[in-house]
């Protein structure tokens, strides 16, 4: 079921379009990664979804909500560089924003306490936010975004500014949150998207150029490629491999033989048979999976 349907969404700054004619759907209960290089229009898209920016044209429809009801009740948003009231403590800030979302005081206190524990800030709950590290602020940011239990949680580059430990913490947290709500997060680091997302939207120059589940996209952009490692001179075997009927192309790159094949199953059989009967000194045999990076480059180029 589509939770959010975006149609022909455009945003122009002065006259240069940041987002142009973008349409996509967010499926309820999925974790969706919005991927694209810096300046692709990811932040602008998220800000329009959160209501912070008004679209130049196009529509955003939330399932089960009329046009004029306040969508802010159902969304949580974490900007790329969240700024807090530094004079508040982490707990005070959470209670404050949940009171703004019309929660009662005891309920606000209860949720603030639970969430601080969940994001690992229980010990720093009563410290001023000015003393928080970058990773702590990011985790507090996620906590404040979800404190009113929104249907859609939007995170703008949630991990790109963090050190490896902070990054790991936040990715683990997102993995857990996937169970409870729909998540849309932007990133320019493809590995992060690969790790937690069910679906991806590839964005380039203000447009969504590809979308689908990770599995679907893998299949679509699957490159039938095998990497072979040998003991000895690779060139001796390059010819032999090329001579195999299922092999299209074969080239050497950094001590590895890259083999492009027609049919993976047949090619694997041919290569391994030849290798065992002729006793090739194979050191490695790897079937290449299409990485998000490959997909992205292909999608951009096509």
């Amino acid at each position, binding site marked *: 079921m589509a939770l959010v349907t975006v149609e022909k969404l455009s945003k122009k700054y002065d006259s240069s379009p940041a987002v142009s004619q973008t349409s996509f759907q967010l499926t309820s209960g999925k974790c969706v990664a919005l991927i694209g290089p810096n300046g692709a229009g990811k932040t602008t898209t998220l800000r329009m979804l959160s*209501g912070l920016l008004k679209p130049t044209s196009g529509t955003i429809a939330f399932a089960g909500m009329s046009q004029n009801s306040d969508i802010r009740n159902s969304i949580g948003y974490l900007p790329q560089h969240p700024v807090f*009231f530094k004079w508040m403590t982490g707990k005070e800030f959470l209670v404050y924003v949940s009171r*703004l979302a019309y929660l009662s005081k005891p309920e606000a206190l209860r949720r603030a306490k639970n969430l601080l524990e969940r994001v690992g800030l229980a010990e720093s709950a009563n410290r001023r936010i000015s003393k928080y590290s970058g990773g702590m602020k990011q985790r507090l940011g996620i906590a404040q975004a979800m404190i009113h239990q929104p249907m859609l949680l939007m995170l703008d580059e949630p991990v790109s500014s963090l050190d490896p430990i902070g990054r790991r913490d936040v990715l683990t947290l997102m993995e857990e949150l996937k169970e409870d709500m729909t998540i849309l997060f932007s990133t320019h680091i493809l590995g992060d998207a690969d790790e937690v997302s069910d679906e991806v939207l590839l964005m380039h120059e203000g447009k969504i150029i590809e979308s689908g589940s990770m599995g679907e996209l893998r299949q679509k952009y699957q490159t039938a490629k095998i990497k072979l490692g040998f003991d000895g001179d690779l060139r001796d075997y390059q010819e032999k491999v090329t001579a195999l009927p299922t092999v299209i192309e074969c080239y050497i790159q950094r001590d590895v033989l890259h083999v492009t094949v027609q049919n993976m199953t047949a090619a694997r059989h041919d290569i391994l048979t030849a290798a065992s009967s002729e006793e090739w000194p194979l050191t490695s045999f790897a079937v290449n999976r299409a990485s998000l990076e490959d997909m992205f480059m292909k999608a951009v180029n096509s």
Partner: protein
Amino acid sequence: MQWWTLFQKELIENVRNVKWVWVPLVMILLAVMDPLTNYYLPQIIDAAGGMPDDTEIQLPEYQPADVVMMSLGQFSSMGVLVIALMSMGVISGERKSGVSELILVKPVSYLNYITAKWASLALLTLVAFSLGMLASWYYINLLFGALSFGALLQVLLFYGLWLLLIVSISIFYNTLVKTPGLVAFLTIATVMLMGLVTTIFSHILEWSPNRISTYIQQMLTTGSVPSDLTGAAIVTLMMIVFLIFGSVYTFRKKELAS
């Protein structure tokens, strides 16, 4: 309920950033500065080396009403400056730093947001101003002669309205521009321009807010509220309401992130 949450946050913030300490103290200093220097002028001149023996120092005998006007004179210049400076960042600063991005994606009503900001500034300004005038009143009774408490209350009421107008102007510019310094500049420029226009067109602008202090002087000398003061007060009140709704309107039309 949401309004109260917003208002409470403003109060706590202004306690923690010590505005609740320094603004009242500054207002007290402004209120007593001129009365004290005028009272001690002979001693000050003496201490500075004195005048030649044959010059007769003729100091005017100040009436309590004159002294009230000295205090108000300071508020009209330095007081306006202090209000403009302490209020310049209340909304624009939050937008500039980006913290409003977190607050305004929550279901916050813009009317609540603006009026809570206005109310907290108005409260601080009125309390600080009242404490200043109380200090001035203390010195008036001590050094210059009796002034009734009723008269003081009338001064607080009418001049307080003028200060609320300045708060409202500042709030309005806060919603219009994002740079705190520019907000302060525009607020002060507007007050000066209003003063200029009032002077030039004095024959038609009898109910201009800028004339409130002139009418207060009349009120203190005659002992009754001049009808022009009531008129000016009504005009001021209308402008305040207009500015508050104007602020909500501009804020609603603004894109909150850019």
